[in-house]
């Protein structure tokens, strides 16, 4: 069963605009991670945020985490055509072990040139 739910399911924006995706989850977590998946390259790890962190930056990516609301957001600034992909959030397992990741269904992001 899937823990996370991404919102929106699909997002189409113009190149250069910012893209925001949200993730909600159900149980307490140790970490939350965001991954990107595009055809031919598989899943690529983007960023990890720990449960005691509220915000994290990596290049054009900004992730926030609100454990009281069990939600996270991923912001991609100044989007590029190469950002076209599906984005997934993943949380560690129900038993508190961080080896098993539980995934949402993903947000499909399309960047229009």
């Amino acid at each position, binding site marked *: 069963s*899937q823990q*996370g739910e991404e919102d929106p399911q699909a997002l189409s924006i113009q190149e250069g605009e910012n893209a925001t995706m949200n993730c909600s989850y159900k149980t307490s977590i*140790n*970490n939350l*991670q965001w*991954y990107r998946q595009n055809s*031919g*390259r*598989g*899943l*690529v*790890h983007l960023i*990890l945020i720990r449960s005691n962190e509220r915000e994290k930056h990596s290049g054009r990516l900004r992730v926030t985490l609100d454990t009281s609301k069990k939600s996270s957001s991923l912001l991609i600034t100044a989007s590029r055509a190469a950002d076209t992909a599906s984005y*997934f959030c*993943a949380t*560690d*397992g129900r038993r508190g*072990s*961080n*080896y*098993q*990741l*539980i*995934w*949402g*269904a*993903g947000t499909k992001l399309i960047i229009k040139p």
Partner: protein
Amino acid sequence: GAGVSQSPRYKVAKRGQDVALRCDPISGHVSLFWYQQALGQGPEFLTYFQNEAQLDKSGLPSDRFFAERPEGSVSTLKIQRTQQEDSAVYLCASSRGATGPEQYFGPGTRLTVT
């Protein structure tokens, strides 16, 4: 360095056939995971190895699914008597330590059962 590789990339099997999917993790990575991903969905956990020990196989959907990692490196996921509902992309991932958490994924094997 080399990433996680999987073979074959595509497999078409007739219903009832057995298939074997291979995963070569990043050298030295302790943990190895198998996931199943249906079209338009996120990955679903199948099983987890720490070195050669299979510590969790709770996600395997039936006893037709079997995974092994006999020497703690290469892993094989075997599906016996394939059914149409087995059609999916099978992803392998590895991580450096025993508890991850960052996982490195292979490109996946797309299995189509006809």
